[in-house]
């Protein structure tokens, strides 16, 4: 069942990705500015610009341009950076591990701490812990990534000198960016877990579990938790998507050499093949995260699994 389900979901991904590639293709072409002119520079002659246009394949009909783009895509060829003349895949691959590391660390921190906080706050409703953690979560929600990053840097790097401010040389460099990027999601996950827990704990089957004589710990961990986590998984998935966006800001604040910074550099230099490649990559990751969420869902909820 599960294997079939995953294969089916993977097959659905294909048309979605094709759609995404089409949108990106059109978007890049709508943005004002002619890449061949940018590449040729301000002093180039008309002939030189035309030559570059031919080189880039921009003289062909848009439809055939798209098919060439797709054809290349299937061969794993995203084109060449107009800025560095390196293959786009190479440019991305050089930065991708950094971004993945940052995103993974952030969502891990956000999930583990968020879920734990949410459970405790929910089970001990109206306790000091509950009030305090939800107050902190409220801060986490309203804090812009940019500002939080700068504040953390100010406190821990400049003032206390405990952690490095910028760069990506060691594990220590990862800590502040990961917290910055994950803070928002952590707050949202904690609040969601708490309210979900509060809802589940009032349900009839929890009373049944207590009536059996189960210890409260077992009532929570075995009977309440799995049910309470079902909506949380969706939120975690959505947060992972949002986080990919937040990564751009975080990478700039902490000079983290990831895909987000690459994107900004590429946009500033009108390096369209790179922009196209990065956006496509982020979209793919987003779709993939959704797939993982759906699989997790099916694992948690047998009612979905047996449909």
């Amino acid at each position: 069942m599960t294997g079939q389900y995953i294969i089916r979901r993977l097959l659905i991904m294909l048309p979605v990705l094709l759609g995404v590639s089409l949108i990106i293709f059109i978007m890049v072409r709508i943005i004002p500015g002619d890449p061949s002119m940018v590449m040729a520079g301000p002093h180039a002659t008309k002939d030189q610009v035309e030559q570059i246009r031919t080189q880039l394949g921009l003289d062909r009909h848009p439809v055939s341009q798209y098919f060439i783009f797709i054809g290349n895509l299937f061969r794993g060829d995203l084109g060449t950076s107009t800025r560095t003349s390196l293959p786009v895949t190479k440019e991305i691959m050089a930065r991708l591990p950094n971004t993945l590391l940052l995103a993974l660390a952030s969502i891990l921190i956000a999930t583990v701490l968020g879920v734990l906080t949410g459970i405790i706050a929910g089970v001990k409703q109206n306790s000091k812990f509950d009030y305090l953690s939800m107050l902190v979560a409220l801060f986490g929600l309203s804090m812009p990534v940019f500002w939080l990053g700068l504040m953390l840097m100010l406190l821990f790097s400049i003032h206390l000198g405990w952690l490095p401010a910028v760069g990506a040389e060691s594990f220590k460099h990862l800590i502040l960016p990961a917290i910055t990027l994950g803070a928002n999601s952590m707050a949202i996950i904690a609040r969601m877990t708490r309210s979900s827990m509060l809802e589940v704990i009032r349900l009839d089957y929890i009373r049944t579990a207590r009536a059996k004589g189960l210890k409260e710990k077992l009532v929570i961990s075995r009977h309440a938790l799995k049910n309470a986590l079902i909506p949380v998984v969706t939120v975690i998935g959505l947060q992972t998507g949002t986080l990919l966006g937040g990564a751009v800001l975080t990478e700039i604040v902490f000079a983290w050499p990831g895909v987000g910074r690459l994107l900004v550099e590429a946009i500033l230099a009108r390096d369209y093949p790179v922009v196209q490649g990065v956006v496509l990559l982020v979209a793919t990751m987003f779709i993939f995260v959704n797939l993982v969420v759906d699989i997790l869902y099916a694992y948690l909820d047998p009612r979905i699994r047996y449909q």
Partner: protein
Amino acid sequence: MNSLLRVEDLKTCFYTDAGMVKAVDGISYDIQEGETMGLVGESGCGKSVSALSILRLIPYPPGKITGGKVVFEGKDLLQISEDEIRDVRGNRIAMIFQEPMTSLNPVLTIGLQIGEALEIHRGLKRKETRDEVLKLLRMVGIPDPERRIDDYPHQFSGGMRQRVMIAMALSCNPKLLIADEPTTAVDVTIQAQLLETIKDLTSRLGTAVILITHNLGVVARYVNRMAVMYAGRIIESGPATEVYEHPRHPYTVGLLASVPRLDKPRVGRLVPIDGQPPDLIRLPPGCSFFPRCSHRMQQCSMERPELRIVGAGHLAACLKDLGS
């Protein structure tokens, strides 16, 4: 003789924004070993709350047991520690709940849910538990137990889920089973089958039963004794056939007239009792049935009637003697 369960002046309240709801307002009764008792009354009269109070399963807040005793096997369940009451729950006293659709956990297999009580109270290992659960499933009449044991609740019909609940409740061979309207959510033919199953199994195992229902017509067939509740109090109790045939409280009379009787051919229409149950936050000072009673006298609005003996083991709380 010592009773298995003796409830004495039990009181449970809910503190709500509108005021204090006296859901159970001082009820008392005894149950002997192996005896079956029916607890009947209209919706909202406090049947479930009184049952949940026995096992201290009232959610706090807003609910609280404010007084009385629940003496079971010589111990007051309202005084013992959390650990001790947990050892009673599901082990010595088990409960079947009103809503078979929502009372089982949707994400756990029924095998696990039935086996849990065995694991914690009997300390059985995984394999022994599984064998025992299979035996229980067979006992409550679930076909093909080997195939069904790893299924989830949503894969069962309402009636079958309630059988799962019965298996769960009887797993540790409790001394007392509290069945809270075990059949409200299933259709009539299945209701009868379920009640037969409960009756068969408990009489075979010697389990005492409190059967909660609002259907007086059904209950008389399955229990020895019967207690009728109104507005948080017991207003009549006695041997089931006696109460059924010679009701002595106007409310019981009305209740009997409002449900189909299984023992006599229907003569006339079913007459529902006029009026609404009283507001449990603002109970009248005298008899709580006063506003709806067709036998009311002036003194009923001032004096609260206590239970008094009206026949052999037969009690009624009414100021007027309806005769027998």
